[in-house]
């Protein structure tokens, strides 16, 4: 039997291709090296030291102030850190589900045709397009005790509503969440709408003909098919909540006191007010690891093959 050794000849043809690929991606690889890898290594290095800008020497000599894992153990004993983490969890636990449900509701609505659909669509996207800092200031004004929101509530209830949204420690976090929901529901709406549009219409019709009510259809056909999209949307949002800064800071600066101090605000304050840079480096790495675990867990939900998602 004659073999023209196609296996080796094919392999020989492929090898130059992959080397070329390597060379072509080199610029991107270098970029990532500088932008992601080096800073991380720097951060790691600093986190093992007690260096601050007031230490009187360049950060490169931080090893002289080596303290090993002390920053980390201090972090775990720091009530302010845990408080910030807790508040971040509150936002994740309340705001994200609300955004999700509102987004889903809107996306479901948009599966039908109705008058003014295009106008509503454009309107819905507006909050997402506003610069977060500007949104922050907007809500700062809205939530004033003598501001428009209280004014509206007064008009609606006939009472003299004078809620101290931004200055009451128990309420401030809700004001912040309301702002977040307003800003990011549109994103959820867009992602979920894309997901819903991908559900095969015929299968929904088939389900209806088999006697499924709208709710049953939603539960048994739509949800399973948009499972992946939902996971992705939630993962994106949760990771973003850890990064909330502009809007919140302009509204409350993390206050009153630490009532709205979420993780990113915590980092900012410790860094700028207490100048404990290496401490923050350690804290930042801890959060990074936590979020990476979360992202990997989310990927577990992704389909293994192209077919499974349909």
């Amino acid at each position, binding site marked *: *039997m*004659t*073999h*023209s050794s*196609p296996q080796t000849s*094919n392999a020989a043809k492929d090898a130059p291709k992959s080397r070329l690929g390597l060379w072509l991606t080199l610029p991107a690889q270098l970029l990532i090296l500088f932008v992601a890898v080096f800073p991380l290594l720097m951060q790691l290095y600093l986190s093992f030291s007690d260096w601050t800008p007031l230490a009187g020497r360049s950060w490169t000599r931080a090893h002289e102030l080596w303290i090993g894992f002390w920053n980390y153990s201090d972090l775990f004993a720091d009530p302010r850190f845990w408080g910030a983490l807790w508040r971040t969890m509150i936002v994740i636990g309340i705001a994200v589900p609300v955004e999700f449900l509102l987004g889903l509701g809107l996306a479901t609505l948009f599966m039908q045709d109705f008058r003014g659909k295009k106008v509503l669509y454009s309107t819905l996207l507006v909050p997402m397009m506003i610069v977060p800092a500007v949104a922050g200031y907007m809500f700062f004004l809205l939530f004033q005790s003598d501001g428009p929101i209280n004014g509206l509530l007064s008009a609606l209830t006939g009472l003299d509503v004078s809620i101290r949204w931004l200055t009451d420690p128990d309420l401030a976090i809700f004001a912040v969440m309301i702002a977040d929901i307003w800003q990011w529901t549109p994103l959820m709406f867009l992602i979920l709408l894309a997901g819903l549009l991908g559900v095969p219409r015929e299968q929904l019709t088939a389900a209806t003909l088999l006697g499924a009510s709208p709710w049953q259809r939603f539960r048994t056909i739509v949800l399973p098919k948009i499972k992946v999209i939902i996971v992705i949307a939630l993962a994106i949002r949760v990771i973003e909540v850890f990064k909330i800064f502009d809007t919140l800071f302009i509204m409350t600066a993390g206050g009153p006191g630490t009532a709205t101090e979420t993780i990113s605000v915590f980092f900012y304050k410790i860094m700028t007010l207490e100048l404990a840079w290496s401490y923050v480096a350690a804290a930042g790495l801890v959060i990074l690891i936590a979020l990476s675990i979360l992202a990997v867990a989310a990927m577990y939900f992704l389909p293994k093959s192209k077919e499974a998602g349909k």
Partner: protein
Amino acid sequence: MASISFRNVTKRFGDTMALNDVSFDIEDNEFFCFFGPPLSGKSTILRIILGLDTPDSGEVLIDGKPVTHIGPAERNIAMVFQNLALFPHMTARENVIFPLVERKTAPAEIEAKLGDVAEKLHMSHILHKHPAQLSGGERQRVAIARALVRDPVAYLMDDPISALDARLREETRIELKRIQREVGHTLIYVTHDQEEAMSIADRMAILRDGQVQQIGTPIEIYDAPANTYVASMLGAPAINLFDVDAMSGVTKNGALDLNGVDLDGVERVGLRPEDGRLIGVDSGLRSTVSMVEPLGGATIVTLDPPEGGTPIRLMLRGQPTIEVGAGIAIEYTPSALMRFDANNERMGDTK
């Protein structure tokens, strides 16, 4: 215009043997059809001809020259896909001239080639339309024109008309045959509609599990199949196969009288549905009519043989009156009976 040959081509995909020692010669200007069930290797053969896949062993020759190391682009073989793959945002005209534009052909030459092809395919009046505005048959012609316009050495069609309405399929297959005759290119065609294959092919190859069972003109294969598999591949309803009991001179299911037939070495006999006739029962060979399907021009009668087993199907011309449940004997012209040996291969020439 070119001949295309395979010499002992074998191709594996992982553990599956897609093609197993396949050899054939397709003549210049021939309308050649590959016929077989799904996964029999038809599409693999097309891909290898195009150059999209390379054989594990064996040779592919175009015009007598090996082309194993010539890439698809240089082979100048055109392909018409089943879903036509027309560009929806272009007009028919732009679709057709696309291959020429891509190759930076001179505008004057483009016009000349376009005019030529449009005339041959009777589509000058639809050139300005977009695919969405065309009927299925018209879109088909645009796809064919696009393949022809670059004057290919040969063109391939993989099941191009199975998605069309039944009536349109009948008309289009005649069109395709006419076009191929007029244009004069080698056309390699894949289908699993046996009537279609028989109608349009100059010659055809029957494939099974990656192996060529038989190559010949449709009528050759129909009248003289190499084995029971090929015999049952062509003809609808399929040929009736009967196990033979040499001792008793009757088929094992008791339906056919085999007196006068040379049964030496014969394991099975075959009778095509159109070769059987029904006669009143005087002998003991009574099969019972279980179903009568009038098709208009012909009637298919299904019979349960006396000793039970696979039902027998006969096709009678016109609309004879036949009662379900009637007891009937089957008569046939001896020369129409096919004999098969223990290896399921057809024996001798009974005609």
